[in-house]
């Protein structure tokens, strides 16, 4: 048996890694995957400190498989309300056709 799900994607500043992870866990998601990312958005004028000369990624991208749209909105609302006034970030939801294999979902 496989299962339908959605994928919530959040791209935001690296500094927020632990805090966003905590929100995701507290919302009851079974896990998350996170990758280092660079990027440009409306706030790209904001610097992240740390030497740019030594090429560093300053964003992170979270991907969270969630069983319902509600959980996704709960997570992204929490993240946005806590951080998106002051930090750059974007959150969107994708459709996952099916979860083929997972230890727990």
């Amino acid at each position, binding site marked *: 048996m496989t299962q339908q799900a959605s994928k919530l994607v959040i791209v935001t500043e690296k*500094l927020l890694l632990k805090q966003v992870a905590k929100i995701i866990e507290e919302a009851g998601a079974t896990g998350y995957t996170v990758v280092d990312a660079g990027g440009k958005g*409306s*706030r790209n*004028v*904001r*610097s*992240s*400190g*740390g*030497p*740019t*000369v*030594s*090429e*560093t990624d300053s964003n992170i991208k979270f991907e969270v498989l969630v069983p319902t749209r509600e959980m996704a*909105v709960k997570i*992204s*609302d*929490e993240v*946005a*309300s*806590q*951080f998106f*006034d*002051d*930090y750059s970030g974007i*959150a969107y939801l994708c459709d996952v056709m099916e979860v083929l294999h997972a230890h727990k979902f």
Partner: protein
Amino acid sequence: MDFLSDFLMRFLTQLQSPTLGFLIGGIVVASLGSRLSIPDAAYKFIVFMLLMKVGLTGGQGIRDSNLAEILLPAVFAVAIGILIVFIGRYTLCALPKVKVEDGIATAGLFGAVSGSTLAAALTILDVQGVSYEPWAAALYPFMDIPALVTAIVLASIYTKKQRDTAGGYPNEQPDTAGGYPNEQRITARGYPKRDTASKRVKIWPIVKESLQGSALSALLLGLALGLLTEPKSVYDTFYNPLFRGLLSVLMLVMGMEAASRLGELRKVGQWYAIYAFVAPLLHGFIAFGLGMIAHYITGFSLGGVAILAVIAASSSDISGPPTLRAGIPSANPSAYIGASTAVGTPVAIALGIPIFVGLAQALGG
């Protein structure tokens, strides 16, 4: 007259030091669009090595020191750290097109301390044969932490007052460099505004955050190891001999950084640039003056006075920015990092160090 010519001569000699050469080399190379880069891992490791060396030197030195002597300079360091932020609060923040939070954060960064600038000053003092108390580098945290704490506290007092008077969202201040129009913002639910009104600023978490940062951790670890173990063998074969060379690489990185941050600084307006040019020297002179008081009262060495002045003149480059980003999230990092990295640090290294070391030498005869 004699004093002045003496000072000028010493100042000019110091301009030819490799430290400065690498800094300027970095600026030139980056301005010319070179793809030269020092890997991030190498940069971080070098910073660790330098701070560890500064700490080990201090720790080994403290053992034979009369610790009562450190009291007055340490008190002065705390006072200067706090003073610098207040100066910024009532000068920089009063200027047109400077958002108050941005100004406070910038002042906080200039009050905080740069380990690499400190390392550069110690090298010059050693080369010039100016002696200083071994514990002088341990003044770093005494200025760094109070400056950051003061900035964060001032900013949250300001934010709270804004919210109370405006009765609403503090960012609705018009026409600011760092403000973003909210019109096009998409939200899934119209998320509720944070209710931070009830939050009181706690000081201990900010102090802890500073102490746990990589720069202060490395410095304090070095101090502890220097004080408690016998690190002479590794110090003499590793941390000490590599110091100058690693510093030259770091200066190169800082030069490249300065050039690449200039664009950011330009976006936030010329007032930041003017502040960033004047502040290091002003702060340094204030500290030099207070240091001289300690010199006359407790016999604080002239080399130590120069170190106090350089610490004041420097602005934090490693652990200051993330601490401020977390502590004053509404401030625009381009403003404070741009001001500090693109102008403040080069001024502190290229002008501040030669001036204050030269002064110490000239006064010392």
